[in-house]
């Protein structure tokens, strides 16, 4: 975006006055309800000429269907902002909208247990596109917290036991309704730097967590809960918001910690307050997410000591990590950079700084009159690559 645009509209209004050279212009914007886009007449037309992946039949069908068409074809796009999952689902089912990202709570209405589209939809020739999203979710552990923080062996063991004891698999299965995969590394799929072959050393293993806690003298009392090695009570505190997913995760955390004898306290607050306290290193542990960063450097900055007070909510300080981070910034994509990333992941795992949970899988459905439907992994607006047939 041109600098003059930002200067003209100012910090607050620049996002609501988009200026650019893209394929669509905003025709109308009813905030919180609808965005209507109209094709930009000044956008240069192009011919759809993309190659399909050799091993993807659906890609081949799309390429055969779309090849040679002058783009963009769609003159007007209406984006409906529907907050309630039921309303989204029923609007698609009643054919009043052309395509949706299936709300997680309605996934069972679209897919069978093997994540295949249900016959009731295939009979209607509804198309499906599933993709692993460029996001990760994680739980950070504050290294400055008086209970779980610190760099001594027993504190590291405590954090690692907590991470080992949290049932990520149940979170994916129950809370995420199997629409997520376990995150193995900080850099999300699709993002440059992601290594599909990297495997984290952290797995859900309550037996190992219990053994680790026993070894470092976190002894269980008569009530089944452990105390600190010096005999003081051990209470692990997590913070969360009041949304429904957080409530479900709170319960899972409670069950998981009970299994390893750690007493859990959950504190609720509003998002702005959590951000404020997090930046002051005052939150022992909180779940956060990260999505659509275009480069691995952005996400790896989360643990750089220079970003304490900004986004290093774990308040992690490691000269070794900082050095790797400097190397990461300097190196081009390649095996050496990948090695640096692996070293950073290992440090994070060894110190028990972040517990990675999952990366989401999005299921998008479209009615048969939508042609060329393929979701761009990063771009939110890709309507100029599709077409729509008259019903």
């Amino acid at each position: 975006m041109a600098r003059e645009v930002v200067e003209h509209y100012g910090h607050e209004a620049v996002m609501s006055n988009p200026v650019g050279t893209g394929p669509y212009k905003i025709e109308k914007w009813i905030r919180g309800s609808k965005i209507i886009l109209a094709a930009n007449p000044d956008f240069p037309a192009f011919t759809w000429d993309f190659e399909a992946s050799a091993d993807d039949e659906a890609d081949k069908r799309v390429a055969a269907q779309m090849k040679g068409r002058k783009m963009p074809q769609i003159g007007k796009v209406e984006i409906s902002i529907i907050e309630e999952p039921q309303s989204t689902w029923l609007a698609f089912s009643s054919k009043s909208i052309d395509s949706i990202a299936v709300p997680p709570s309605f996934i069972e209405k679209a897919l069978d247990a093997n994540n295949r589209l249900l016959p009731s939809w295939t009979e209607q020739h509804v198309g499906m596109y599933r993709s692993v999203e460029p996001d990760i979710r994680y739980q950070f552990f504050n290294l400055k917290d008086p209970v779980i923080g610190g760099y001594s062996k027993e504190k590291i063991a405590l954090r690692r036991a907590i991470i080992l004891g949290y049932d990520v698999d149940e979170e994916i299965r129950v809370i995420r309704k199997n629409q997520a995969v376990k995150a193995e590394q900080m850099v999300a799929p699709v993002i440059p730097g992601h290594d599909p072959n990297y495997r984290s050393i952290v797995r859900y293993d309550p037996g190992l967590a219990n053994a680790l806690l026993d070894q470092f003298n976190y002894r269980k009392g008569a009530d089944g809960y452990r105390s600190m090695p010096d005999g003081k009570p051990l209470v692990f505190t997590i913070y969360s918001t009041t949304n429904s997913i957080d409530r479900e995760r709170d319960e899972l955390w409670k069950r998981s910690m009970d299994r390893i004898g750690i007493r859990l306290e959950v504190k609720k607050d509003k998002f702005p307050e959590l951000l404020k306290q997090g930046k002051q290193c005052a939150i022992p542990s909180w779940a956060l997410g990260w999505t659509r960063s275009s480069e691995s450097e952005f996400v790896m900055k989360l643990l750089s000591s220079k970003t304490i007070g900004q986004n290093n909510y774990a308040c992690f300080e490691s000269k070794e990590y900082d050095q790797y981070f400097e190397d990461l910034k300097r190196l081009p994509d390649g095996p050496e950079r990948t090695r640096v990333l692996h070293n950073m992941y290992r440090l994070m795992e060894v110190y028990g700084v972040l517990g990675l949970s999952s990366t989401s899988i999005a299921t998008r459905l479209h009615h048969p009159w939508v042609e060329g439907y393929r979701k761009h992994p990063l771009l939110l607006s890709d309507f100029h690559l599709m077409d729509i047939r008259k019903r």
Partner: protein
Amino acid sequence: MAAYVIRRLWQMVPTMAGVILLVFFLFNWVGGDPAYVLAGLFSSQEQIASIRKELGLDEPIWVQLLIFVKQVLSFDFGSSWTTGEKVSQIFATRLPASLTVVGPLLIIETIIGVVIAVAVSWVRGSWIDRSVMILCTTGMSISILVFIIVGQYLLAYRLNWFPVQGWGESFTTNLLVYAPLPILLGLVVSIAPNTRLFRSFILDEIDQDYVRTARAKGMNEARVMFIHVLRNAMIPVITFVISNLPGLLLGAFLLERFFGIPGVGREIILAVERSDFPVIKAVTVYVALATMVFNLIGDLLYRVADPRIQLR
């Protein structure tokens, strides 16, 4: 009458001053810091400080209070802290959608509530009266969410009588196409408590001495009910309806959310979640003002309902 209205308007000043102080200090005490929301996850203390300065949050508390008072007096609450949209623009664009649903809903629910209440009061104690009261109690025990979820699924999706959700640009289309189902579901929810309440207002009147006298004079039951009882029972009905008006706008947020109506209720909930103080301030002041004005209108309507009432 004019002197009464002027006196009532004058009395609004201290009430509004109380509202201003309460809102200001409550928000500063319990509200979150919006600078952190605006700055986002990746932000430095310098960026947060810069946003706080931009929003005037670094000014002394009394300066912030003075700015608030000035905003109330000028009805210019500035821009939303989270979207940058002018607060006046938010109300100008969202209020019509809310009123399209809430206006007809209020009129219809009051008329239907009064009609049913009169009908069951007429046959009070009978099986019809008892059945209606049981139905009302059952209806009141069911959450509004159930009515909305089932109503949307059954009436819009299954039977295709209404659109599942949506909102257009023309008032007529919205009123005739998109608003009927939310209005219908709002009615189903409100009719039960209204009927019970209005029935009790009528029954309070029905055993009064003046009713017995009217009957003793040989007046027929219809005249007793519609001319004498209903006129007196209308005073608490007016009080109830008028005092519910401002709250109805906020209470319709669930209907707005499920049916994709870009109304003001939804904006208010979002503003509270995001600690968007300019919007919260404007809403509180508008609602306080609307409550006082509607109360005044209600008092004036008492005189219309019963000319014996003297406004002093």
